[in-house]
């Protein structure tokens, strides 16, 4: 029976949300080829307990490697583990999260195994036994359908495109026997400096972004309040203009030279909608624009727009969302 491998992601022993998404994506591919899903998780001792939970999303087998050396991301350690597992099994495809970790790891594994890799899949379909990967190119100005002429097919999966779906399977945990050699790893993560603990803009289901129309960093509390009202699943974003002005950090920049987002809801506040900004938000399902200029290009892509001054519209929007949330 064909098998599809999903590479899960953990930080400090806790699985990250993208893991369930990758398992769901792997399930889609496995269904297409009439196969099963394996998952691999590597992390500090205790991670196995978490990993078994991925059975909920359709994993039959969960390969686990536990070592203190794997608490933080080790590119070399993870490459060793994943490449070794792939070598020993016959996988039809291997799916990685399209996160910072997955995009670092997948190309290393691909080069080590001399396999091509398709990055940032937003769609996966099996047609006549072929895996067709749909991926945005040219900043989302075009979509490419590609086929990898090799086996296994390596793919990274864009966050938020495959919503985790319950699909109970065995999820039996098995220890993967690979002799990792931490003393030979050259790249070391010294520390992780946490800037915020809430959801990252690249992975958030709701994003509130501010642009130059916000007038200055002193008005950002208005966006923060709206974000709070929308709940813990909301993250702040920014246009490049405000990042360049030093109002916000680059980690919040959305667009061609920032993050690509694919939330259910994207609220663009005082953002004109330049091509390079749009490059980052094409995957958003619903876009709301608030801008005082009715001719701003953002209105061409916005599902809903309000023409008005952000400083007047924002407080009202926050108030209405709070009311709605309070009403449950």
């Amino acid at each position, binding site marked *: 029976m064909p098998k599809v491998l999903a590479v899960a992601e953990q930080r400090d022993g806790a699985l990250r949300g993208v893991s369930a998404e990758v398992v769901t994506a792997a399930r889609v591919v496995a269904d297409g080829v009439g196969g099963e899903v394996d998952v691999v998780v590597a992390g500090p001792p205790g991670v196995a307990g978490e990993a078994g939970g991925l059975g909920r999303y359709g994993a039959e087998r969960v390969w686990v490697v536990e070592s203190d050396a794997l608490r933080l991301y080790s590119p070399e350690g993870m490459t060793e583990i994943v490449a070794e597992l792939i070598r020993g099994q016959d996988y039809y495809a291997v799916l990685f999260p399209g996160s910072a970790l997955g995009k670092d790891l*997948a190309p290393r594994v691909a080069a080590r195994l001399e396999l*091509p890799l398709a990055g940032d899949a937003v769609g996966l379909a099996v047609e006549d036994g072929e895996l067709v990967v749909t991926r945005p190119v040219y900043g989302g100005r075009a979509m490419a359908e590609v086929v990898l*002429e090799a086996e296994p097919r390596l793919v990274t999966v864009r966050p938020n495109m495959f919503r985790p779906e319950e699909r109970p399977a065995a999820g039996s945990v098995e220890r993967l026997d690979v002799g990792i050699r931490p003393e030979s790893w*050259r790249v070391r*993560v010294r520390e992780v400096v946490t800037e915020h603990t809430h959801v990252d803009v690249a992975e958030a289901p709701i994003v509130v972004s501010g642009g130059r129309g916000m007038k200055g960093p002193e008005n950002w509390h208005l966006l923060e309040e709206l974000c709070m009202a929308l709940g813990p699943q909301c993250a702040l974003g920014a246009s490049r203009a405000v990042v360049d002005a030093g109002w916000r950090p680059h980690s919040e920049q959305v667009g*061609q030279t920032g993050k690509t987002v694919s939330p259910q809801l994207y609220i663009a506040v005082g953002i004109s909608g330049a091509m390079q900004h749009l490059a980052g938000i094409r995957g958003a399902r619903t876009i709301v624009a608030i801008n005082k200029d009715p001719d701003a290009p953002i209105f061409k*892509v916005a*599902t809903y*727009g309000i023409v008005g001054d952000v400083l007047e519209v924002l407080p009202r929007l926050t108030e209405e969302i709070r009311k709605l949330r309070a009403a449950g």
Partner: protein
Amino acid sequence: MRIVVCVKRVPDTEARIRIAESRTAVDPAGLKYIVSPYDEYAVETALRLKEARGEGEVVAVTVGDAAAGESLRAVLAMGADRGVLLRGETTMDGLATARALAAELGGAQADLILFGLKAADDEQQQVGPMVAELLGLPCVTAVAEVEVGDGQVVCRREVEGGVEVVESPLPAVLTITKGKFEPRYASLKGIMAAKKKPLEEKEARPGPNRVRVRALRYPPERQPGRIVGTGPEAVPELVRLLREEAKVL
């Protein structure tokens, strides 16, 4: 200290893209091309490292057709010392590009090999770490800040929710994201000087392309937007639509 920067020539990020009749590629006719934006950040990083040390050489390398030579000239005009054009076809198979680059860079004796985080056309985000793996070099990706010490680099790497402080021995491969510095513009003097800088041309050896583009299409058109209203009075209707129509609240 020798720093190699790999750069790619890509369509302008502002340009309208037209899909060719083959339906598997972009029509290059009339398209303006630029050095891929993240690659410019990599060039800026290389130039600053060289300037801070007061010595060193910055070498720009590209795989592409004859026109890619223009991109190398643009990078030389920014301040790189010499360029290498590996002439060959570029495809969506990043491993093929990586093979061509690795074949050249294996003997380049570079202390650092810099890449952009991703190329603005294929956006695979893979060529850098692939080259590292093929050459057996350590690699750090998504680097916003670099500090070169004695035989090692310390990088600030952007991850979800924060930064990782990562160290690696030299030589190393880094992929560069936007950091504190904007890429410099070429001065007139730089442009003149670039004309005299060495630009070597060789044949690329990318090997087989195993990523077949079956189709290229335009993204699904977004339904034309709707202006709900003007000013704060329009907010209740917006919230209603978000809840009842879009079902996102």
